[in-house]
């Protein structure tokens, strides 16, 4: 990273809008710690067992239930807030692991011997054939399913996405940088391989790695939503299970789903991914206008 890039990033509107949305989500992730048991009695507002006997479910939004309740009597806002934390952890872990593993693959590919490069490329090609959510589904159906928390999920997803898709794109970028004149200059000056990779190549890979990291987040969150929609994670409440509950337990009289319970997590998911997308647009524009 150099100061020019950071300065442009600071002026970028999409970047700041994205950061703002993320800050709101972070606040949402912390909120249940303070609200549950204090302002919200656990018996009524608990995301899994809560039930309000004083209103008829599903209830439209009111002062007591800001987003209403679903057909089972859960408070939708409380569910949404409790589901934000696992998603937030998952997204952060997945983003970091994706970026790091993709960069490592690219650096190995660029500075090591052709033989090592080829075998790393082979592993990337093979991993690219595996859609990560499907792999997570296989894991989730096994004996380990109760141990797959958000962190494990993020690590596995990040490894698959980073070594597979991200590694291939970054490796191509690294190779196109390796033929530029300044690399030849460094080589003539007798720079070691390690130093070449970290000092000369890495700074040019960081913007692209950032973009890829943020794109991987959307994939990871949707995959987690899908798997919890199918009931295969250890997480109690997540956006995916909310959609599952909302669409499964329909109103016994009208046959309608609880639209507030279905819409709220879907809108949250889209907004969350949009935030990361806006940040990646900001980083890309800053990096593009620099060149």
């Amino acid at each position: 990273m150099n100061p020019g890039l950071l300065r442009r990033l600071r002026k970028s509107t999409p970047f700041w809008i994205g950061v703002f949305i993320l800050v709101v989500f972070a606040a949402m992730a912390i909120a249940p710690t303070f609200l549950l048991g204090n302002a919200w009695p656990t018996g009524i507002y608990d995301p899994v067992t809560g039930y309000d006997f004083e209103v008829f479910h599903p209830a439209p939004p009111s002062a007591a239930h800001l987003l209403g309740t679903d057909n089972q009597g859960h408070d939708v806002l409380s569910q949404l807030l409790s589901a934000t934390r696992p998603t937030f952890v998952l997204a952060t872990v997945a983003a970091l692991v994706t970026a790091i593993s993709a960069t490592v693959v690219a650096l190995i590919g660029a500075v090591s011997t052709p033989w090592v490069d080829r075998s790393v490329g082979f592993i990337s090609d093979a991993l690219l054939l595996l859609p990560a959510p499907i792999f997570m589904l296989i894991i989730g159906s096994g004996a380990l399913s109760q141990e797959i928390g958000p962190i494990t999920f993020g690590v596995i997803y990040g490894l698959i996405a980073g070594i597979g898709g991200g590694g291939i794109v970054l490796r191509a970028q690294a190779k196109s940088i390796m033929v530029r004149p300044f690399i030849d200059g460094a080589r003539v000056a007798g720079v070691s391989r390690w130093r070449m990779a970290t000092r000369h190549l890495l700074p040019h890979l960081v913007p692209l790695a950032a973009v890829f990291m943020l794109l991987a987040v959307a994939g990871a969150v949707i995959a987690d939503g899908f798997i919890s929609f199918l009931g295969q994670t250890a997480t109690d409440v997540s956006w995916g299970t909310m959609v599952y509950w909302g669409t499964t337990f329909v109103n016994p009289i009208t046959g309608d789903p609880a639209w507030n319970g279905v819409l709220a997590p879907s809108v949250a998911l889209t907004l969350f991914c949009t935030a990361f997308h806006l940040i990646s647009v900001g980083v890309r524009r800053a990096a593009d206008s620099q060149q």
Partner: protein
Amino acid sequence: MRYVAGRLVQGLFALLGFLTVMFFAVQLIVPGDYFTPFRLGLTESEVDALRAQYGLDQSVFVQYWRWLTSLFDGSLGTTTIGRPISGLITNAIPRTLFVLVGGLVIAFLIGTAQGRWSSWHRGLRSEVVTFVGLVFLTAFPPFLAFVLTERAHMPMNELRRSVMGESANPWRSATTFTEEQVLFQMSVSLLASLAVVAVVTALLRRYTNARPRPWWVVIGGIGLTVWWWWQGGRGAFALDLLFEAAIPLFAFVLLSYGEFLLIMQSSMTGVKHDPYVLTGMAKGLTERQVRNRHASSNAILPLLARFAVSVPFLMTGLVIVERSLGWSGLGDFLFFAITAQDIPLVMGALAVIGAVSLLVRIALDVMTVSIDPRIRRP
């Protein structure tokens, strides 16, 4: 040609390595076998006898060898209780193939056209177009599928009834073809007419000076496909199936066109300030001509390269759509196999999904090589 063969061999080795790793990984991750979830009150010795009968008591390596040999003779082995997997999978492939091919073509056309347009015009309207694409790209697929089945199913059935007549099935009882055969034929003819259209436009460009208008190309392609369907004598059946496939197809297009839009937009922005764009303007070409011919044909190359990487993500979207809409293609099939813990079946489905992504990737590579004169080999 040699390039294609090289890519194919390399890809096949990658696929084989991937499947081997997956075989052992699945054995490790999902302990137990077919008889673990389906014991149905059998005693331990009876289960052991069943295991011995179906060869599940042998070591992992013996099972692996058996599976590997069955992969090479093309039968993909049998399920644990002895039904041939290749038969089951060929029943599922046409449904997936049709939605995948049809959906990708439509999504490509819509996505690139919008990306081209919105990268050229800055302003509120272009931001809105981008945002709508982004919303669908990041929409939660089961939610989208749910809304579609809830709201689009009834009108679609009404439409189908008014077009096809009250009793929906005279076409089906009249023919001897199965749905799968007709769907397979539909996807193959779609691919074939795509190839024909591509070759004809390329020839026209090379030997005459005529450049066919994009809309004529699209209409010609659709016409050729439909003509092909009727040619087989099962046009009505195909139309009926098309009504059935419309909702999964629509869902898949919605989920994937945003990807094309975003990539096209960023790569168009990259070429917008290149010198040849300025030259084109200076020559007196209209902005539209410069954008649609000169800039977009240069921007399409990064699109293809980036798209190769997103193939597995698109496959995932398809799996999710199939699962949520009950469209019994490969995704639905794989899910069933996983819940039944039938490892040969899971491996069969994974092999086919891997092979499909591999083929799409190689097709993309070939397209890149044939479009870009700089990397075309002598």
